[in-house]
């Protein structure tokens, strides 16, 4: 007979250990899946986790690590704030798209003038685009009590349609021979988001992501906002009695996460992606949800989780090229990681006893 006893408070040791256990279990289960697909599991795991960092083409793939981890971390830091307070912004993908559209539109409006103002203006536009898009579910929740999960998600589909319309219509490159997609912003010096140190992948967005980790850590542990967020997450009733205005908290948490997601979109469209196109977004907004949970909704944890998730992206692409492993398998692999984390989380809050049930 296996019995679960609720711990008086979550185990600190297990809080730190569970992500590692989950990663190990995912490697085993993922290996089994790769074996079922007829691939050598050891080689597949090595290609995903080892080769991007230390393999033959590591000099190409290492900078990609920061390029991919940057937006994931930036978005996940914002999401973690809301998730801790029980506010579920699931539509970061939409806010990311809107940030990119607004930033690209701003940059293209000034094109081809070369002034220092272009890049800062795009940053402001990107942050505002994401923020305003997130205000729709936030204000509807505060004013009408609508479910923010559903509204923010519906708005992802709306944003995708808007993106298609923009890259085929208003923002299409007039010199693009009729091909869909905007001008390449990475080739417009005033707007380009280039590597701060060439060849490292460290662009402004990545630098901001690192800054967000530090600010996030300070806010969560030292600032009143962090205290209110934690209080609202643990006991909404106590938070109200403690003077936390729930509506205010919804607006602040959604606003911060939307703004950061918009910024991530801005840095992506001005740098690594370069152009706004129909399939410009690659699901960072959704993967960031996994990153936030994998990092235990803790800024330092999110930093590590973002790097790990970026690694699976790059390794996945490598495995696709070298081993002909389908990209969908990597998506499943990431889903599995979250499943295992949620499962082993049990150990954080409960202790397991073996033996017969004792009469109370």
């Amino acid at each position: 007979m296996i019995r679960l006893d609720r711990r008086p408070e979550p185990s600190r040791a297990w809080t730190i250990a569970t992500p590692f256990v989950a990663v190990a279990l995912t490697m085993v289960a993922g290996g089994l899946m790769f074996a079922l697909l007829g691939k050598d599991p050891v080689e597949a795991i090595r290609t995903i986790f080892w080769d991007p960092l230390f393999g033959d083409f590591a000099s190409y793939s290492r900078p990609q690590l920061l390029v991919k981890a940057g937006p994931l971390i930036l978005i996940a830091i914002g999401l973690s704030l809301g998730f801790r307070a029980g506010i579920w912004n699931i539509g970061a993908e939409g806010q990311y798209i809107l940030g990119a559209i607004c930033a690209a539109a701003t940059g293209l409006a000034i094109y081809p003038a070369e002034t220092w103002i272009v890049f800062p203006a795009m940053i402001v536009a990107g942050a505002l685009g994401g923020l305003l898009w997130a205000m729709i579910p936030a204000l509807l929740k505060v004013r009408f009590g609508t479910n923010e999960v559903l509204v923010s998600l519906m708005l992802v589909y709306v944003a995708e349609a808007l993106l298609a319309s923009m890259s085929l219509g208003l923002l299409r490159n007039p010199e693009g021979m009729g091909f869909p997609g905007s001008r390449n912003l990475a080739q417009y010096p005033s707007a380009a988001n280039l590597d701060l140190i060439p060849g490292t992948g460290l662009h402004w967005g990545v630098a901001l992501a690192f800054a967000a980790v530090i600010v996030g850590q300070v806010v969560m542990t030292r600032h009143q906002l962090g205290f209110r967020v934690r209080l609202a997450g643990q006991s909404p009733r106590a938070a109200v009695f403690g003077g936390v205005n729930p509506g205010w908290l919804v607006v602040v948490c959604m606003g911060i996460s939307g703004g950061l997601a918009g910024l991530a979109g801005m840095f992506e469209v001005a740098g690594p992606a370069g152009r706004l196109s129909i399939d410009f977004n690659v699901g960072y907004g959704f993967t960031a949800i996994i990153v936030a949970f994998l990092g235990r909704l803790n800024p330092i944890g999110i930093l590590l989780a973002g790097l790990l998730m970026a690694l699976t992206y790059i390794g996945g692409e490598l495995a696709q090229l070298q081993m002909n492993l389908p990209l969908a398998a990597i998506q499943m692999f990431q889903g599995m990681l979250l499943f295992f984390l949620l499962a082993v989380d049990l150990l954080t809050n409960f202790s397991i006893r073996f033996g017969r049930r004792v009469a109370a």
Partner: protein
Amino acid sequence: MSNIDPILLLSAIIIVSTPILLAAIGELVVERAGVLNLGVEGMMITGAVCGFIAATSTGSPWLGFAGAALGAALLSMVFGVLTQLFLSNQVATGLALTLFGLGLSALLGQGYIGVKGPVVPDLYLPVLRDIPFLGPVLFRHDAMVYIALFIVLGVWLFLNRTRSGRVLRAVGENHDAAHALGYKVVRVRLLAIAFGGACAGLGGAYLSLVRVPQWTEGMTAGAGWIALAIVVFASWRPGRLVLGAWLFGGATALQLALQASGGVQIPIEYLQMAPYLATILVLVILRAGRAPGSLGRSFHASS
């Protein structure tokens, strides 16, 4: 507007709303049992691919639907085990289920892109089909349309007229009290989750076998999320669920008809937003009724 045939439009609404209705009635039962499963989209798309594979390999659409229900129910058990036995957060687990389901379906469906599936025949209803106007609108569809409505009726009867249905509602309203009365909270919830998975699977298979009909990656395109919204809109009552599904089916069918007619000068991208915007609008206008008391909370007997 003038070249839209009202009969075709109304008949299209029935077809478009059926997959959403199927997924929503399953989720309604899950939520009445006090569980919030946000993985409907993932289960639906897994059902879509399982159904398509089963139907093309056996040549029978009915075995396809059975395979879809089974496949999605199996997937829902991942959610069931995690949330009911491992007591994981239901919101996070549901999201993980959707991400996992999207990956799983893409992987399973690799060899089936562009393949043509078996045709699902219309049910031949003599006399009824010849009624002017009503005949073509209501009585010239495939059997799944009517099965979906019978499932809704069955769920209503189950929830309101049977003892087991009352047990399920008790578990959803207050799981501690239900446990104290000796009901098996975890078992009831696992069964509800499996039923929800099977229904979502049927809805997904309806997309891949009837509505589209072929397999493409990500083909559910948010239908699972719309189903979740309809459950809220319906205030967790089966009757209003049908109304909700038709309303959303209407928004989709109308935008498709407008696209096809080419009479209005609205870009396709903006028309495509319509069903999602309509969903938000309805969520805003219609205040939801009271949700089941224990919705989304984990149950542990000792606490």
